[in-house]
């Protein structure tokens, strides 16, 4: 890592803290396992054979580098004279950035001698990525998924089954990503000897937030190089959606040191912050512990985790990665929210203007650029992380738009 791309401070520290966030808050039963995982990861970091294998598979299997695309019609639609680039993570094998991390951790699990992967999934993209990597590496795979998410992301459930993974419905609590993580951790506690928990975002106990960030930082390092080639300069503004926060940390990480680049994370505003039906942790949350780390959490005054809402399953989660909390505290990254209807409108815009159907998660980032990009000065360069594609969301969008297949018409609900 050279000086121009180094993080502004070496985080996390050896205990997994990003300032006051992060750490390890897990039952004692897991502590030896997370300690061993940390040691193994630190060894691999210095292992050039591992890096060579990871990079080879990112190229030959995932299809990296992914394209950087100048979205001219979208740019003109937002504000004439600006240039909006899309980092096309939707073109990765399996359709989202999640495969970068699944591949890295899959290779790590194999080196640890584990024969079984467990994972949680919300939108299903991480579950599909894990099932894919398990198949490619010859490992068993079990994915926990909330029953509400199974319904709204049905195509991904089918994909995971086709890839040979077992999908376990989780019917407890909010029946979404949060509860799927609870169950995946319980599985891991019970099957430590054989199993690696392939956590899909920059969450959980140390070393996960750091490890997942490192595997995803390929997004930003590629985009930086590609933009320098295309424009000869850095972007003015980078925008990405934030659920747990892995695609956003992935693209932001190579730019943290570059102070001229404004970084914005877009959370799920759901039906509006005032309704309470959202997943905007920075706007509506407070510091707390969930799933093994200290971060911003949506919770009540007793510390009970509050239910969340978003049209996109991947953003429908009550906590955010600790590194995000750290950079929010330091003022390096701004966090805003886009509502369900703004995201659906952005989905339409990208489809009609650029011929790209984005994942509803990524549509939140586009929505914010459509909204706030109007006030950018002429000549501004904007980089948006298009973290995934929208195939998995077609059913949800059809329902939202009142689509009738027999007539091919839309009847928007009032």
């Amino acid at each position, binding site marked *: 890592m050279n000086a121009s791309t180094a993080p502004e401070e070496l985080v996390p520290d050896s205990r997994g803290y990003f300032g006051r966030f992060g750490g*390890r808050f897990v*039952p*004692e*039963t*897991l502590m030896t396992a997370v300690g061993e995982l940390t040691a193994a990861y630190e060894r691999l970091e210095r292992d050039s054979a591992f890096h060579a294998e990871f990079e080879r598979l990112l190229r030959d299997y995932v299809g990296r580098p992914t394209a950087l695309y100048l979205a001219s019609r979208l740019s003109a639609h937002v504000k004439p004279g600006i240039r909006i680039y899309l980092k096309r993570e939707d073109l990765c094998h399996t359709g989202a950035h999640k495969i970068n991390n699944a591949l890295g951790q899959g290779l790590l699990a194999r080196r640890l001698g584990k024969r079984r992967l467990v994972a949680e999934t919300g939108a299903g993209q991480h579950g599909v990525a894990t099932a894919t990597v398990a198949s490619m590496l010859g490992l068993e795979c079990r994915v926990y998924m909330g029953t509400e998410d199974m319904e709204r992301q049905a195509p991904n459930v089918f994909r995971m089954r086709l890839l040979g993974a077992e999908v376990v419905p989780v019917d*407890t609590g909010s029946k979404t990503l949060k509860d799927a993580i609870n169950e995946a951790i319980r599985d891991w506690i*019970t099957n430590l000897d054989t199993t690696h928990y392939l956590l899909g975002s920059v969450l959980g106990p140390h070393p996960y937030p750091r490890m997942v960030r490192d595997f995803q930082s390929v997004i930003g390092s590629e985009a930086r190089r590609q933009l320098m080639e295309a424009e000869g300069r850095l972007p003015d503004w980078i925008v990405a959606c934030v659920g747990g926060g892995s695609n956003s940390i992935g693209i932001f990480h190579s730019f943290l040191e570059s102070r001229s680049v404004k970084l914005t994370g877009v959370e799920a505003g759901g039906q509006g912050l005032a309704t309470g039906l959202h997943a905007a942790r920075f706007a509506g949350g407070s510091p707390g512990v969930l799933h093994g780390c*200290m971060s911003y959490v949506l919770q009540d005054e*007793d510390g009970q985790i509050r239910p969340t809402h978003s049209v996109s399953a991947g953003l429908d989660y009550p906590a955010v990665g600790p590194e995000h909390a750290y950079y929010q505290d330091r003022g390096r990254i701004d966090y805003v929210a886009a509502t369900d209807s703004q995201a659906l409108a952005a989905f339409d815009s990208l489809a009609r203007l650029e011929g790209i159907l984005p994942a509803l998660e990524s549509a939140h980032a586009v929505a914010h650029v459509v909204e706030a990009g109007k006030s950018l000065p002429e000549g501004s360069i904007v980089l948006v992380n298009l973290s995934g594609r929208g195939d998995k969301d077609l059913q949800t969008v059809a329902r939202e738009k009142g689509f009738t297949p027999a007539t091919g018409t839309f009847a928007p609900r009032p």
Partner: protein
Amino acid sequence: MSLLTDALRLAVARGDRAFIPFLAAGFPDQETSERALRAVAVAGADAVEIGIPYSDSLADGPVVQGAYHRAIERGQTLSRTLEMVGRLTRDGFPPVILMVAYNVIFRVGLSRFAALARAAGASAVLPPDLPVEEWCALAGALAEHGLDGIRLVAPTTTQERLPAIVGSATGFVYYISRKGVTGVQSELPEGLEEAVRRVRAASPVPVAVGFGISSPEQAAAVGRAADGLVVGSALVKALDSPADPIGRVRALATGLRVALTGLGPLPPSTP
């Protein structure tokens, strides 16, 4: 020396082992929960563990999770739980251990939570998701209010970690009998006795064993090595019954009490 440590030592001095029943506060409803807690105390508990319902309890299996969710749905807040603990401890109740997710303590505030627990008459606090590395601040807050902080040791705890956990333990050390979550199991894990002896040898306070133990036979077997036994899911399950839940809880608690009685002296711990 704490009341809780004394209670466990006293049981062993009698030739018994300490019986520590666990129930979820507010399950199946507020009134039945309070009656069940009184019933297990009368059945001869040496200490009582009360679970503060939490939406996302990582170390719990389906029985305790289900009980927590139902209690929360029925409006079991932290203040209701503490009020109930206050009523129970007013006279002649065994020492109370509050099992509580760390986020609840953190959200309320470490010192404020300790003060509230103390005011309710609790003797100890047990956060199942707080490893020893993160204990420092809470240990201070609990000590300030005269409360014990119960620490857990797992089958996966290495010999290197053990001294850091038990070295400054208060009340008793909770040994988790198996790799897994709470819930009834038919067999005791292999090597349990040996593992408990290892922990006991390192610990300045008594060692109680929990997770997956439900039958009087299992209880007596655990009593060969441990100072005490925690039984939770089996009691919670017994309470989840339309017909005479209190009677069923009382019967199970009495059976366990008998099984843990008259086991003779506990072999001295050998390092």
